[in-house]
């Protein structure tokens, strides 16, 4: 089933993955569920397992220890799926570039497993919830 049809037929279920983040992006993601932003009105739902997810919201630089776990999560997520790199760290390591325990950025880690992975980038430190919603919605439209 193509992404466009899938996205139209049902809401997008997302699984949140922290690969070594400072928490800010993660909290802003959880903020998306709260009354002020309320992403459920767009049909976006946070699920508790990658096996139920259509998309991964990935935060963090991709530490060496987290890299393999991220790849494992990606493998477990049914395809097609989209990977959203949320925040400066996930997009390109941000301020942590050069640190000895980072293996990222996230897109490199995912592409090791799937060179054709569908990856979208939402920069910011952290991206505001409005930016996250805008990024996810735009990416879904573009993918279709």
């Amino acid at each position, binding site marked *: 089933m193509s992404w466009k049809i899938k996205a139209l037929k049902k809401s997008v279920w997302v699984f949140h993955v922290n690969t070594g983040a400072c928490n800010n992006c993660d909290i802003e993601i959880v903020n998306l569920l709260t009354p002020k932003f309320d992403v459920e009105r767009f049909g976006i739902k946070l699920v508790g397992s990658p096996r139920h997810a259509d998309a991964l919201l990935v935060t963090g630089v991709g*530490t*060496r*220890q987290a890299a393999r776990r991220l790849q494992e999560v990606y493998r477990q997520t049914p395809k097609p799926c989209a990977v959203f790199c949320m925040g400066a760290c996930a997009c390109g390591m941000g301020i942590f570039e*050069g*640190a*000895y*325990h980072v293996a990222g950025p996230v897109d490199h880690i995912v592409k090791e497993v799937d060179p054709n992975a569908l990856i979208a980038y939402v920069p910011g430190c952290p991206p505001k919830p409005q930016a996250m919603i805008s990024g996810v919605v735009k990416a879904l439209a573009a993918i279709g």
Partner: protein
Amino acid sequence: MTQRPIRDRISEIADKLIRVEQPRPNRMMLLCEACNSFEVNRFLFSELGLRFVIVTGIDAEDSFEILYHYSNDHTGCLATVKAFIRDRENPAIESVTPLIPGAEWIEREVHDILGIDFVHHPNLKRLILHDDWPQGVYPLRKEVRT
């Protein structure tokens, strides 16, 4: 236990110290050799009842310095034991974890990042470096570049 000023009782371990430095009224540094560090730590934690804060390990070129930071919450003084490990080939110091359970993690961390052996540590296994990090590479040593 109400924490009294350290200087009231410092004479009790004066023979274990190289010297005492007091750069400002509420900051104190107790310098000692590694072989005496356990006794000095025991004095601050058990005798004086200071609160353990953390351990800093430093690669100081000609030695390793292991700094044990304590807080005297009653007086607002931060006291640091600065222990010198002179043997750079086999750096070792007695663990304070049997005395202070809260020191377990940080001694494991310093072991990971500087390669210091904490003798009598109950659980000195890898803590913060990832599973495949090469043995013998200690990231906080000066020879390791970022």
